[in-house]
C-alpha cells in the first residue's frame, strides 16, 4: 500500500529523515512513536504532499507519490499529478484546521462537492452519517469556534473520511486537547479502526491507545526506524534500550 524507499528529507542543515525504508500493508493500522524531532510528522507530511522528498521515492498503491514516470525515468511530480495522487489520502491535524468561515456541515461537504464532484444532496447525506458516527449529529449547523477542541477534532475526522480515502494520516490528533476531551476522540478512532479497512498511519503519544488498536508500531529515532514490531512485542519486550527508555519516559510523564 505504502512504500518508502531510501527517503531523505532535510530542513536546511537539519537532517530529519535519512535513507528511510518501510512499507505498510493495505488495511494496516500503524502507529509511529518516538521522541519529538525524530521525523514522524514529516513522514505524514510527505505522504500528504505538504512537503517534498529530497531523495528516494514514496509509492502509494503502486504509484509514485513524489515522482511520476516519464518513459523509464522518474521526474518530480507536478501539481496535476499530485492532485490525482492525493485523492487516496486524507489527513487529520494536531490543530484540527477546520475552516472557521464555514459551519460544520460545509466543512465536511466542501471537498466532496468541489474536489470529487459529488452532488450537494449526496455530500450532505454522507456528512450527516459521518457526524452521527463521531457523535456530533446535533452540531451540523454550529461554527467551529462554538465547539470544544475535542468536538472540532471529531469534525475534522469526519471531514477527512468524507473524501473516502484509502489512507488516513493522523498527526498527533489528541495532543492539542484537554485531557478530558481525549477519550471521545480516541473512541471515534477505535471505531474507525475496527469498522473500516482504511490504512491508517498514526503519529501519537497515547501509548495505551497505540497498544490497543495498532497492528504494528514503529519506533523512530533520529530519522530512522529503530524498531518495527507488533504492539505486544514493542511495548513488552523491545529489542532496543533506546525504545525502553523512551517508553519509560512517556509512561512516567502520563
Amino acid at each position, binding site marked *: 500500500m505504502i512504500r518508502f524507499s531510501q527517503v531523505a528529507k532535510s530542513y536546511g542543515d537539519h537532517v530529519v529523515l535519512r535513507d528511510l525504508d518501510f512499507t505498510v500493508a493495505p488495511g494496516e493500522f500503524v502507529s509511529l512513536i518516538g521522541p519529538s524531532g525524530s521525523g514522524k510528522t514529516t513522514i505524514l507530511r510527505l505522504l*500528504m*504532499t*505538504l512537503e517534498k522528498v529530497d531523495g528516494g521515492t514514496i509509492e502509494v498503491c503502486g504509484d509514485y507519490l513524489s515522482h511520476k514516470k516519464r518513459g523509464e525515468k522518474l521526474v518530480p511530480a507536478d501539481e496535476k499529478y499530485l*492532485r490525482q495522487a*492525493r*485523492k487516496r*489520502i*486524507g*489527513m487529520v*491535524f494536531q*490543530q484540527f*484546521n*477546520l*475552516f*472557521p*468561515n*464555514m459551519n460544520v456541515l460545509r466543512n465536511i461537504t*466542501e*471537498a466532496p462537492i*468541489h*474536489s470529487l464532484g459529488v452532488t450537494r444532496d449526496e455530500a450532505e447525506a454522507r456528512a450527516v452519517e459521518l457526524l452521527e458516527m463521531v457523535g456530533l449529529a446535533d452540531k451540523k449547523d454550529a461554527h467551529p469556534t462554538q465547539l470544544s477542541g475535542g468536538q472540532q477534532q471529531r469534525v*475534522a475526522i469526519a*471531514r*477527512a473520511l468524507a*473524501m473516502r480515502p484509502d489512507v488516513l494520516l493522523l498527526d498527533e490528533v489528541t495532543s492539542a486537547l484537554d485531557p478530558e476531551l481525549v477519550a471521545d476522540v480516541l473512541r471515534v478512532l477505535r471505531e474507525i479502526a475496527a469498522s473500516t479497512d482504511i490504512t491508517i498511519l498514526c503519529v501519537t503519544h497515547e501509548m495505551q491507545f497505540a497498544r490497543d488498536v495498532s497492528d504494528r508500531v514503529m519506533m523512530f529515532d533520529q530519522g530512522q526506524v529503530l524498531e518495527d514490531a507488533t504492539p505486544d512485542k514493542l511495548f513488552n519486550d523491545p529489542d532496543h534500550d533506546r525504545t525502553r527508555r523512551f517508553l519509560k519516559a512517556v509512561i512516567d510523564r502520563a
Partner: protein
Amino acid sequence: MDWSWEAAYDSIPLLLKGLLVTVEITLLASAVAYALGLVFALIRRTGIPVLSQAVTLFIEFVRSTPLLIQVFAIFYLVPPLTGFTMSPFVTGVVALGVHYATYAAEVYRAGIEAVPSGQWEAATALNLPRSRVWTAVVLPQAVPRVVPALGNYTISLFKEVPLLLGIGVLDVLNRAKEVGAETFRVVEPYTLAGVLFLLVSLPASILVRRLERRAAHS
C-alpha cells in the same frame, strides 16, 4: 475679519452639489482600488514570472510619484497616446482608484498572510482545487480582517479628491472657489468646504474604529 452668515448660507447649495461629486468619486475610486488591489495582491502572491515583477514595479512606481502628477499624466497624456478621452470625473476615479489600489494590494497581502498555514494545509489535504482554496477558504478569512484598513484608505482617498481641482472636477473645493469668484467672499465658502469634509470623515472614522474593534474581537 468679517464673517457673513448670509454669504455662508448662500454658498451651501453649490457646496452640497460639490460634496455629492466628491462622495461619488470617493465611492467609485474605492471600488476600483479594492478590486484592482486584490488583483495586484493575487498576481504578486501567485508569482507568475514577468507579470508578477511587472506588477511589483508598477506598484513601486505609483507609490513613489505624487498623486497630482499621476492625475495630470492620465488627463493630458493618455488621450493623445491612446486616442481615448476621459472626462475629468472619470479621470479622477481612475487616478485615485489606481493609486489607492497599490495601497490596498499591500493590505490584502497582509490579510492573506495572516491566514494560518494550517488552513492551506487542510485545503491541500482535502485536495480542493486552487481556485476554490482562494474563493472558499483564504479570501473569506482574509478579507473581513482587512475591511477596517481598507476603510481607512477610503477616508484618506476622500480627503485627496480636492486634488482633482487641477483638472477641473467640480468637487467641494472647486465649488467653493467658484462661489468665491462670483461673490468675492472666500472665507465663508472655503471654511464651509472644510466643515463639510469634517462632517463626512469624522463619522466615517468612528465607523472604521468600530469595525476595527469588532475585527479585533473575532
